[in-house]
């Protein structure tokens, strides 16, 4: 029986992209549904202002909690569709110098497709290739121009992703996912902002980016458990720097590299039930928070 994971790779605060992506190699059998409920907690007390890593007692430690419901469905054995909706809440720890209220609410609703383009034996293993599309757009009227507490970037996003996956017969695998994430415009609630010059409009151009994830993993316990380590990075194709001791804004060029560890366990005794956990730490960046985050989730898969 094929197994499915849903893993939302990039819940890295509003300062970076929000790109929940079906970025793994697992496909749903036709007419199967998988539901994920995931909780993530992330925090940072340092961020890169341009290339300069700094602290800021105005915001102290920023905390971010995300509860996410996601569903996947196998349209056929080569094509999956995904739907996701996260609820996010943010705040600073007390004491802090800014006394800003945090924010909470529904973030972006996403819909995705993953298509299996290729599968063939190669030496002692199996090579597969996938293409996926993930579109997301704000599901509430949250304000993207309220950083670092904004729930998200407040703009439609579309990630075009190619995935290559090689897995040995012993269950050792590596995977590379490359994506171009297009981002549109976000509407602020002011009619003037500075982005290396004056802009007399509430609309801000949110930079698009290249996103890369490289994963090494292994199946254990007769394919009941998979464990992965990964490195991810984002390079924005445009954008300005956070200005000195100033708040970030959605026009910023956000780049980062991040290490992650991930495990997903499928219960043998309860058919379709799984639990997952992960930890991620940003290790370098530009106009990005040095966010560390862990997540815990429950998956349940069943046929229609």
């Amino acid at each position, binding site marked *: 029986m094929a197994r499915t994971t849903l893993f939302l790779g990039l819940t890295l605060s509003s300062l970076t992209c929000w790109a929940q992506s079906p970025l793994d190699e697992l496909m749903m059998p036709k007419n199967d549904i998988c539901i994920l409920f995931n909780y993530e907690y992330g925090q940072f007390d340092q961020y890169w202002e341009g290339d300069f890593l700094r602290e800021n*007692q105005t915001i102290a430690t920023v905390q971010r909690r995300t509860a996410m419901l996601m569903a996947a469905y196998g349209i056929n054995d080569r094509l999956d569709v995904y739907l996701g909706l996260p609820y996010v809440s943010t705040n600073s720890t007390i004491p802090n*110098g800014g006394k800003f*209220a945090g924010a909470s609410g529904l973030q972006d609703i996403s819909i995705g497709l993953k298509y299996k383009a290729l599968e063939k034996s190669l030496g002692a293993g199996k090579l597969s290739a996938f293409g996926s599309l993930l579109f997301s757009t704000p599901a509430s009227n949250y304000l993207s121009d309220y950083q670092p507490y904004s729930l998200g970037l407040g703009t439609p996003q579309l990630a075009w992703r190619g995935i290559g996956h090689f897995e040995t017969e012993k269950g050792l695998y590596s995977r590379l996912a490359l994506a171009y994430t297009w981002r549109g415009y976000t509407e602020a609630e002011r009619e003037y902002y500075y982005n290396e*010059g004056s802009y007399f409009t509430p609309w801000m151009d949110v930079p698009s980016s290249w996103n890369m994830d490289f994963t090494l993993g292994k199946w254990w316990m007769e394919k009941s458990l998979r464990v992965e380590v990964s490195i991810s990075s984002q390079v924005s194709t445009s954008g300005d720097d956070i*200005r000195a*001791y*100033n708040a970030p804004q959605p026009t910023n060029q956000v780049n980062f590299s991040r290490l992650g560890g991930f495990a997903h366990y499928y219960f043998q005794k309860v058919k379709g039930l799984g639990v997952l956990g992960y930890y991620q730490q940003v290790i370098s960046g530009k106009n990005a928070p040095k966010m560390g985050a862990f997540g815990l989730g429950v998956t349940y898969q069943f046929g229609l």
Partner: protein
Amino acid sequence: MNKITYTILMIVSLFLVAGCSMDLPTQLEFESYEYASLDENGGDLQPILMSKGLDIFVEEPNGVNSPEFLEEVEQVKRQISSASEDQKRNVLQWTNNPVVRWNEIALELIAKYNLIPGPNPDGSYTLPNPASPDGPPPFPFAHPPYASRALAYLSVAQYDGLISAWYYKFQYNRPAPYQIDEEIPHAYVEQPIPAYPSSGAVVARASREVLTAMFPLEAAYLAAQEEKHLEALLLSGENVPSDVEAGLKIGNEIASKALERASSDGMKYAQTSKAVSDSIANAAFERFGWKWVNLESPQRPVGLTPLFGKVKMWNVPSVESTRPPVPPVPGTPAYEEDVRILLDYAANVTPERRRIANFWQDGLGTYTPPGHWNDFAIRDIVKNKLNPLRAARVMAFLNMAMMDAGISCWDAKYYYHYPRPIQLIEGFETIAGTPNFPAYTSGHSVFSASGAEVLAHFFPEKASQFRAWAEEAAISRVYGGIHWTFDATVGTTQGINVAQYSIDRAKTDGID
């Protein structure tokens, strides 16, 4: 691929095509227009920094039949015929009302420099220093009082310079090159205003000089802007080099008058030492039993410009005459009612209140509240097709009134030294940034009410709109959680009072 996939892909592609090409305006889009009036007697207007427009001497130009002038006309004709596409675009960019463009340059620099210095690693703060502008931190910190003052000197210099220019234009009546030679194309709308001295050159030089003094690190940028503007004057067909030279002379002289006043208006003493700042706070504590304190971390030792209230005003004889009454004493029913209102707003951030708080925030990194009212003003100037002299007049009275408003507001702020909501309400959180100065009265309220009153005077058909905006700007600070309601309401009254002095002066300057 099946049908569903295809449909989704189509939707996505359509969205991409539609969403990719948004045009984000970086300036007010308008083209050269026919002025609503020519103001042939504009040279008789009462200037601000001198007694008459003719106080600046401009010699009589060479006549239209003189070989010198005809050679100049030939010269610009050659230049125009060989102008590049970039140069032609530059001519259209400046339009026939460069008061607007130079105001936009000022707003851009304000936003660029409106960054509060952060703490040093040891927790101390270093303030920008005009003697070493490179910093760190760079000079200036273009906060609202600084912005109001920069805009006031800019607009007053433009206005006075244009009064002189208008005087000599209709004194000497020398036509523009496009009027002399039919083969010279005119880039702008044709109207019978003499070309000597060039009003564009007056605006370019006066603006460049004032802004260079206010933003010394931008000297090269401003010189480049001036160069582009002067080139546009020649390539537009409106000016020959001697028109420009005479305009530059006026620009230089009026800028030095403006900067002479600026150098002795008291601004250099506005940011005080900690000792002086503490004594001001303690005086308020002795008087009223309260004092504002900065709650940032690390704590800023001195509030923003404690002595801005002592800066020389433009049109108000004494700042004390506009000082508002004592605010509600903490603990009294009037005060407790305000606490209740603020807690209610904080607990119920409606979409409308949030929108208002953000629309008017004009905080760090932006063009500030005075900048916002300049932004409004230039839109109505263009909409009403004011000529540059009339435009500069509106901006001069607007910005004088708003600087006076800032001075009056800062006098109240540091006289009363009233605490912010986060200081008095335990655990209170805000959706706007709490500034580094006392609460009473709200700067946004005073700036906005004064700006609205001046604009209501010049554009009476829109008076109720301006006043409604000013009230919204005032209450926005309460929605943001950083002001008491009485900061806003009393501040609005204060702004209206302060503006009246500038409006009274505008009524008697000889044009309406």
